[in-house]
């Protein structure tokens, strides 16, 4: 039961993102060419809804399941990591047309070659962990 609720959240998210066509490379290329509002609409509604939900939790209007307030962590305000890391991630996102979340959907849908993609992503994560102290943050 403890595990099931998280699987359900992931299921609804994965199912919905598939039907919203956010898994599609063609939608990603279209977005980066500014040829449709579709993807921007998804991100925009997601952020606005998320903003309202976050504020309700922040102001204590909604408490978590444990009856306490959720603690939001402020992200450290050091810029190089967000600029360089962001650009590197964006290039990968546009190259395969898939981000880290959509990879799981495609694996589920039967595109088994994404096992290799997942392996490469793990290698990239590991490379970052190994090089972290040498990179500007």
């Amino acid at each position: 039961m403890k595990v099931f609720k998280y699987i359900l959240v992931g299921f609804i998210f994965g199912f919905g993102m598939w039907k919203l066509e956010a898994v599609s490379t063609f939608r990603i290329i279209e977005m980066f060419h500014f040829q449709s509002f579709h993807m921007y609409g998804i991100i925009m509604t997601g952020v606005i809804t998320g903003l309202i939900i976050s504020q309700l939790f922040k102001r204590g209007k909604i408490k978590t399941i444990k009856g306490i307030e959720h603690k939001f962590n402020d992200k450290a305000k050091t810029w190089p990591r967000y600029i360089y890391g962001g650009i590197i991630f964006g290039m990968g996102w546009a190259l395969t047309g898939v981000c880290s979340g959509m990879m799981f959907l495609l694996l589920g849908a039967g595109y088994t070659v994404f096992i290799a993609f997942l392996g490469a992503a793990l290698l990239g994560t590991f490379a970052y962990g190994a090089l972290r102290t040498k990179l500007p943050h």
Partner: protein
Amino acid sequence: MNENFDAIIQFISQPWPWWMGTFVIGFAMFFLLYFDKEFGLSANLRTMCAADGAGDFADFFNFDWQQQGWNLMVALGALFGGYIAANYFGGDGMAHVSQAAVDTFNGISQSDIFNVDNVPLIPGTDVIHPEIDPFWNLYSWRSLFTLRGFIVIIGGGFLIGFGARYAGGCTSGHAISGLADLQLPSLVAVIGFFVGGLIMTWFILPYILRMTI
């Protein structure tokens, strides 16, 4: 009764309009915050590295990864979601992109393969589309063993894994959770995502896809 059931399946199988993002993303955000967690799928990559013993090599992976098990379950759920959506609610299995985008795809492939009705959702052959023009058959094992496919799949995967941890989050962690929490670093990261994405889409991707080896 059965007719109603079919009608419901058909209704869900239609392509969803963009504003359904409100419910899809809102649902995930609300319940993860309610469970006292935060939405961010790329953190799973770090967890998987740590679970495989990467902590022996770099301190970055020395953390109590079993505390992150819930996030792996979200990823597992997303995997099931993809399976059910693709196999039972796939509809026509097409990406309903604009005419301008179709022209762009045809420009990239330097041919007239696509019109607004035949752009598949996924550029691969494995399940839904048994036949697809070889140019767009990117997500398949056969493609992986070409230089072009290797760059697209392995190169993209590596950049995503590296970039997501360097930036401290991915599309869900920064573009959704971070922006919704009005985090300035997340806005910088999202601008970075777009700068990187624009450079790749406009100046690099067409040349990679046109490779014939």
